[in-house]
């Protein structure tokens, strides 16, 4: 459906060299799927979306929708945004304040070359307003709407043109937390009902995991990893992805060899020697970077039955924070502070010994790409 190939987009700043916003971005989105571009601010996700929209002119690459090229540097094709027939919802919603709700939603039909007649416009607009639950407010001035309603109107305006592609630029970021949760479900429902191919831009990993069929994680203009939400969360390829999505423990170590019985690599770490899962990038005698999620660090007071194919360690509770539905702990193993998330029934006090189990399948050897740069 949508295919983006080797897309490079730069833009000029008043001073200094051009900003390289999107670098060699390549991905494909099948028809009817919900695809998310996820990354920290300045990673190039919005620029990529705007390049698909045609609001930015890329430097090179190809963008193809339904078999039609809308941009191709090699063939000199650039379809202007108003000829692409893509619906777009902006972060600010961009609701025109000088029009009513109805007029806002009817605009895409009214500026069309083969403009439908009045009754057709009315029917279409009312049905799309009905779909987003705004039909009873059609004659209201657009500025009299609440934030959530404006958001839904922006969606209606994007849908009324029956677009080939729906582009959403952080549409939920201006809503308060409760409304955001509600709109998340609504967005998912509308997308599924209409079966419309959707590209979604966000910096909120929770949103991305909840909504998407597939996620492309971006950093510094490049796509770092593409995959379904579960794969992105459970099997991050690089330190950046592991760090940006959820929290994780990073452990550095030296590769000691391959354990034939467990079919895993043995790595010496500050915790001691552990067995880790790897895609095959590890080398004997090389360095390894290991990520394990806090919820995969299992704690128990009772002794563990020793097993040669499992990681069994023991530590001391150093810090605990009660958060209601779970407890966060820091456990000192060797001289490393391991973060763990446990059921609130675990009541081991600070300073007491505790046993730690880490499933080797969850101890991932990942690529060290420098990780997430702390933003001040």
């Amino acid at each position: 459906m949508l295919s983006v190939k080797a897309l490079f987009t730069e833009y000029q700043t008043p001073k200094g060299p051009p900003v390289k916003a999107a670098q060699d971005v390549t991905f494909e989105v099948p028809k009817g799927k919900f695809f998310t571009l996820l990354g920290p601010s300045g990673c190039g996700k919005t620029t990529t979306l705007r390049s698909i929209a045609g609001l930015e002119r890329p430097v090179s690459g190809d963008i193809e929708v339904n078999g039609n090229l809308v941009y191709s540097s090699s063939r000199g094709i650039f379809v202007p945004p108003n000829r692409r027939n893509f619906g777009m919802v902006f972060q600010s919603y961009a609701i025109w304040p000088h029009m009513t709700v109805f007029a806002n939603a009817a605009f895409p039909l009214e500026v069309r070359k083969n403009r439908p007649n009045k009754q057709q416009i009315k029917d279409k607009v009312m049905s799309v307003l009905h779909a987003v639950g705004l039909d009873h407010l059609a004659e209201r001035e657009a500025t009299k709407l609440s934030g959530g309603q404006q958001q839904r109107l922006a969606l209606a305006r994007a849908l009324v043109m029956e677009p080939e592609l729906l582009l959403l630029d952080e549409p939920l970021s201006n809503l308060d937390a409760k409304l955001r949760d509600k709109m998340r479900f609504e967005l998912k429902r509308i997308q599924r009902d209409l079966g419309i191919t959707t590209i979604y831009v966000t910096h909120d990993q929770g949103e991305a995991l909840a909504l998407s069929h597939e996620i492309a994680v971006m950093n510094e203009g490049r796509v770092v990893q593409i995959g379904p939400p579960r794969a992105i969360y459970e099997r991050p390829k690089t330190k950046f992805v592991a760090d940006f999505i959820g929290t994780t423990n990073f452990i550095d170590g030296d590769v000691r060899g391959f354990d034939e019985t467990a079919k895993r690599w043995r790595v010496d770490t500050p915790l001691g020697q552990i067995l880790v899962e790897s895609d095959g990038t590890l080398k004997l005698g090389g360095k390894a970077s290991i990520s394990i999620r806090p919820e995969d660090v299992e704690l128990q007071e009772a002794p563990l039955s020793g097993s040669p194919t499992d990681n069994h360690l023991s530590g001391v509770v150093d810090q605990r924070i009660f958060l209601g539905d779970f407890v966060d702990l820091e456990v000192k193993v060797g001289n490393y502070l391991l973060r763990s998330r446990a059921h609130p029934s675990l009541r081991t006090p600070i300073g007491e010994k505790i046993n730690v189990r880490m499933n080797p399948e969850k101890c991932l050897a990942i690529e060290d790409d420098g990780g997430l740069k702390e933003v001040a």
Partner: protein
Amino acid sequence: MAVAGEMSGVRRGDAPATPRVSSEWVVTSGVVTFVAWLTLIPLGFLVWQSFMTPQTAARAQQFTLANYIEAYTSPETFSLFVNSVQFASGTAVFALVLGTLLAWMSERTNTPFKSVFYATSIIPLVVPGILFVVSWIMLASPKIGLFNLILRNLFDTDYTFFDVYSMSGMIVVDGLHYAPIAFLLMTAAFRSMDPSLEESALMSGASTLQIAWRITLRLAWPAVAASFLILFIRSIESFEVPALLGLPVGIQVFTSSIYDAIHRYPSNVGLASAYALTLLVITSGGIWFQARIGSQGNKYSTVTGKGFRPRVIDLGRWRYVTAAIFLLYALFAIAMPFFILVWSSLQRFYSVPSWAALKNVTLRSYQSIISYPNVSGAVWNSMVLSLSSATLVMLLTAVLAWIVLRTRIRGRWMLDNMASLPMVMPGLVLGLAIMICYLTVGGGIYGTIWILLIAYVTRFLPYGMRYNTTSMLQIHKELEESAAMSGASWLQSFWHIVLPLLKPGLLAGWIYVVVVSVRELSSSILLYSPGSEVVSVIIWELWQNGQYVELSAFGVMLIATLFVFTLVAQAIGRRYGIKET
């Protein structure tokens, strides 16, 4: 010095006052009294005078309605009103259409050289109005106008192509001069618009023209209406164009009639006052409408996003057309007027540019203007007046803005209105009011340079107020509160916290007031007396005497000085963090 004299009112608060009276209270009440004295008293005298007969040696003044009867029953008054409205609305529409088009081209399209254009667009604002009008007389008058002569030669006829001495001539000249104001106002409006409002129309499939017409212009509508009113008021108050272009052919507007009534013999100040009050009512109406539009503007503010750079519309080949429009504007509003002044300044007697006249090029006019009586005095007066009025206005309005925005003093809205009152007073009206006031009260101020200082400070109070209010709004109240918590007195926190934070706005406003003070003619023309001439009055006199080449030489030097001053002041300002506006 003037500044020190007026500042003493502020300084008094610094002294350890009696425990019960805080410095804040002393400064506030002092400022309120001072502003009331500046703005309300002259207005009162103007109203009083309009109901009085002229004072002569033989007869004392007495109450009369004759001024109003004369003003409103004469058949000329109706045509006066029609002319004024026609001139002002014509000028406003012309300037607004031109300015909006230029602003749209510069902000939203990929027209070549638009950044250069933005930088040069403010030049006409620096040029004094009277010089602009004089240069246009040299360009487009029926007899000696360069354009007419060129076209007559070209087509070999006697036809008059352009006649600057006409209503349309007045509108074009004033409109060209005011177009930069419209340009700046509309540029600001376009910049404050959320670009995604236009992008979403683009994504909806709208074409460039559909977006410009149905989205951009509609959204800018409050700004368009407000700009129209500002331009309307500016042109109904403008004096130079009606006096130089309208009066010779009998096209009278309010401003030129006021001037006429005072300068006829015997002068009729009462009649002038009656005209002035009528004008005042019109401008007040305009300002009132503008304020109403401004308060409705909030309706148009929406949730704003992360403010991506506005997309520039690719005009394709049309960008050469828009570039040509830029070029034509620069030619007619800047290059040609300045060229003709330079040319004229290099002649012995004014003659139209030609190869023959090129041989007579001389710098004699520059020599003679320097030795011209009163010139050095006028330059000195203008310098002292502009620097001291700018300093005084900015300091005074800093305190005023603070009182209006930061205190809970009852009636502070009145103070705001009082300081903005001069906005509705055309220069001539203000000059007249101040003239009547100090002729009646005396105090030895009339006939000195002090009366000009009072007029300038009063006239430019609203500008200072605007600059200071804008920057005061950006200073968070907690910055002052934390100074108070650190133990600073009101005066200490004002001096050490508020003023330094206001500095960019203060400096920008100061530069502006200096420039407009040097250009000021319409108040000065009524208030100067021998010995207290200013540069604009000298130009006026040179014009009346027909000394065109000396006038041109003086004008060229003045424009160059103002231009260099603005550049230097802005360069200094940039180091103190003034954003280019």
